[in-house]
């Protein structure tokens, strides 16, 4: 059973509209690489300079990976990776286009 990646609405144009994508990998970084192989261009919306972009939150089984081991966080079959723009509690920044950090 692979890892399921939940794709936010704003990135679904890159996944042909798919809400979830199943990929394989041993770490979060490998999962995102595999996601990018299936849907080229998506990784740069999520990752920048080998870390999760400042304006994006990535959760492994609901836990923010920044408080785990970031992209080096190990993943296991059946895990769920959720990618979300940061809007919770008033935290929101641009996720749409790379290279345009919000205020």
């Amino acid at each position, binding site marked *: 059973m692979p890892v399921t990646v939940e794709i936010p609405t704003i990135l679904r144009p890159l996944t042909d509209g798919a809400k979830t994508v199943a990929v394989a990998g041993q770490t979060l970084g490998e999962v995102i690489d595999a996601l990018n192989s299936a849907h080229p261009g998506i990784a740069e919306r999520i990752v920048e300079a080998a870390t999760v972009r400042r*304006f994006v939150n990535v959760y492994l089984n609901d836990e923010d990976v920044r408080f785990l081991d970031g992209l080096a966080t190990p993943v296991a079959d059946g895990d769920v990776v959720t990618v979300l723009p940061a809007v919770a509690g*008033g*935290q929101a920044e641009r996720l749409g286009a790379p290279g345009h950090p919000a205020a």
Partner: protein
Amino acid sequence: MREPSLLSAIGNTPLVGLPTLSPSPQVRLWAKLEDRNPTGSVKDRAAAAMVLDAEQRGLLTPGSTILEPTSGNTGISLAMIARLRGYRLIVVMPENVSAERVSLLRSWGAEIIASPAEGGSNTAVARARQIAADHPEYVMLYQYGNPANALAHYRTTGPEILADLPDITHFVAGLGTAGTLMGTGRFLREHRPGVQIIAAEPRYGETVYGLRNVDEGFVPELYDPSVLTGRVSVTAEDAVRRTRELLDREGIFAGLSTGAILHAALAAAGRAQRAGEAAEIALIVCDGGWKYLSTGAYEGDLATAVARLSGSLWA
């Protein structure tokens, strides 16, 4: 307990054990009942601190107008304080918050400007900033960036919890403005090295995240990730389920953000239990369930209740 006025009755809330939900006598959960504040939420602490700070700095004078973006509780707290101190209050609020919050604000005399549901609190903040630019005479306390918000928790919530739970190992609260987590978290870290500070954040539906462009967005200026040791995204389903468990098993009638916090606290409790470690876990009960009754979250089938919350800012 006698107090000179309602403002003095803020804080010093009870910390009650949750013996039924706690996994074992070695791993215990404790709930800080912030619904016992004068307007029924944790926000009384920050609102009072921000108003008093603005008065001391000469920003607020009798007759001033306060303008604030808020999805509800801060507005209700400010409305009460504005009444006592003689200010006019205008709140900018997403249109998809619960009906009770709107009614409560109006009852306390606040004026309400609705902002679009899309973008949630971010849109409300952007709208409030526009209005403030057009009305330089308005005073925006700006809870997301006002140090007095976090300082209120550093000075009151943190010391209260430490006094009641000197062996605290975990503190769990909601991540909104970040004020509660930053203030309480900093205080506890200074006095209890190794304490875990865990944020629970609501995961909303597509309406809130489904933006083409989040240009109006921002990170709350108060948010400092170095204070936290973990951050959990909690779905509406988990939040509603835990809110019901808290009511069913401990008799505490709390709002839905508290359900999200309890979910994160139970995860931490489970980890400690499996690791064979003792844990004293304090969590915040942000408010009571009264304001959320109209959402239908407290009765009937769970899936139906969760579906009804879809598209709303439930925390």
